[in-house]
């Protein structure tokens, strides 16, 4: 199933929170949803689900959600860890959510076991920790085995083991031919989990591409070359039109990802090469660079 967001938009007074956003989610891969605080990620997810009123529409295999039945077989969403009645037991919470798709009781218990909440299934979730609440939310989302998972910050409050479990689970879920769309502030985690990225800032689309392509756009991708004659190599590289910055006594950082080009240039210049390596930006570095100046709620800086 493809999920197509078309012209999504939403204003709060004079503030345009989401502005003409369009992207397509494909099955078989985890798509990460990134953006600075206040970029409009949660609003976008609510617009996709029809929970918020705004512009545009979202098509799920060519049809709106209202035209689908049962809806919980199409999409499972986890928007907030605390979306439950504190005095309704975890099992009853899922039983309630199971009615739309007529999910059998056995599946409710199965999902509780899967997320590790079987021992507290009869307990009221009012006293659950954030991590347990996240697991209950995730259980609700996957209950009817939907073709699309929409998860807003599902890793918040999880311990490292649980985050690893979540990563493995979501990758496996996507590999079964499902759409997984997940927002997270844990960029290192997203780098391990997502294959495709939708990045927004100030409500507008910044990137809709593979993680690899997004990271490659960063200027922090360069080639480090350590040489016996820094001055000669610098001159040779600049004459090739490459930007070069000195690093240490014998190093040059060259603004390219092409190690062959740097190696050939050194060879032609007749200088010795002690080290030649490509340095790739992390997702975090690329994200910070490509969204700098787009933060809705930036801090004032250190004193």
């Amino acid at each position, binding site marked *: 199933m493809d999920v197509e967001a078309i012209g999504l938009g939403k204003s709060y007074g004079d503030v345009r929170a989401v502005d003409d956003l369009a992207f397509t989610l494909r099955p078989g891969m985890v798509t990460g949803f990134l953006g600075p605080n206040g970029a409009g990620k949660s609003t976008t997810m609510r617009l996709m*689900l029809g929970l918020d009123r705004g512009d545009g529409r979202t098509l799920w295999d060519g049809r709106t959600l209202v035209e689908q039945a049962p809806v919980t077989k199409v999409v499972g969403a986890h928007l907030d860890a605390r*979306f439950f009645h504190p005095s309704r037991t975890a099992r009853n919470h899922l039983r309630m959510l199971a009615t*739309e798709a007529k999910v059998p009781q056995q599946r409710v218990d199965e999902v509780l076991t899967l997320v590790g909440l079987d021992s507290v299934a009869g307990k009221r979730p009012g006293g659950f920790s954030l991590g347990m609440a996240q697991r209950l939310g995730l259980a609700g989302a996957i209950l009817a085995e939907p073709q699309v998972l929409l998860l807003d910050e599902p890793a918040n409050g999880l311990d490292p083991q649980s985050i690893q479990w979540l990563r493995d689970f979501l990758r496996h879920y996507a590999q079964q031919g499902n759409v997984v769309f997940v927002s997270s502030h844990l960029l290192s985690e997203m780098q391990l989990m997502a294959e495709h990225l939708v990045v927004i800032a100030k409500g507008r689309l910044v990137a809709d591409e593979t993680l690899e392509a997004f990271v490659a756009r960063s200027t922090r991708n360069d080639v480090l070359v350590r040489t016996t004659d820094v001055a000669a190599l610098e001159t040779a590289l600049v004459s090739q039109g490459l930007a070069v910055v000195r690093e240490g006594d014998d190093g040059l950082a060259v603004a390219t990802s092409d190690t062959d080009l740097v190696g050939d240039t050194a060879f032609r210049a007749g200088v010795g090469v002690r080290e030649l390596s490509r340095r790739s930006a992390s997702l975090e570095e690329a994200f910070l660079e490509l969204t700098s100046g787009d933060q809705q709620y930036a801090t004032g800086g250190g004193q």
Partner: protein
Amino acid sequence: MAHSLTYERVRITTVRSTWISLALAVLLPMALAALASSPNPVYDEQGNQIGEQIDWTQGIGAPLVITAVIASVIAAQAIGQEYRFGVIRLTLTAFPRRIDVLLSKILVVAAASAVLALVSLASAWAVLALRGYPTPPDYAVAPDAGFYIRGVLSVVLWGLSAFALAGITRQTAVGIAVPIISGLIVEQIVAALVGSRAQWLADILPWSALARWGQTPAAAQPGFDPAMDPTFHEPPVGWGGVGVFAVWLAVFMALQIWSFLRRDA
């Protein structure tokens, strides 16, 4: 629609407050009926009557005010608590056709209010029987079937008004408090203050009008002659009273429907 009804049924039966409310709908009317009932006039040692005989109608009907308040708690929670805890977003994700969700909630609230009213009436009936009232009652003085139907429907209408107010404001407390404070306090004060200067205003106060549903029009009472008192004014009673409340309820419901369908969840 059938699935959203099932969802609502599971929702309402899986929280403690529903069962606490049901228990209160049994116990409080029993207590009130026991306190308010008196099968025979009460006399002191000298033979002076010091207590009135309380008939079936009063003994059974009085506790319904408490039942209406309990119904308003369940009704207001049906929507207010969903917004408070964010569960409405889960509900509307599973059921994107919002009108189905709202209709299901209205039906479940109405059914729950009716059950509470019936339980309350049965509890009060049992207490009156234990207190020595004749059973079956003397139908010359005991309430007729219309009394029970009006009682149940009054509780249902009260509950629906609480539901609508909680839905408009997304606040459980507003749904519970406004009918009580308005019906039992504010409207009485307003009616007393405006007096004959703006009698029409006192006539259209919602919960007071609902309370007059069971009253018989003066013209239908034997010996009544309106010519005897040219200043006589009678507010809407009987069907007129419930009609006034129905107009208010329709306005509340229209606002509630608009709010539920058009606003962000």
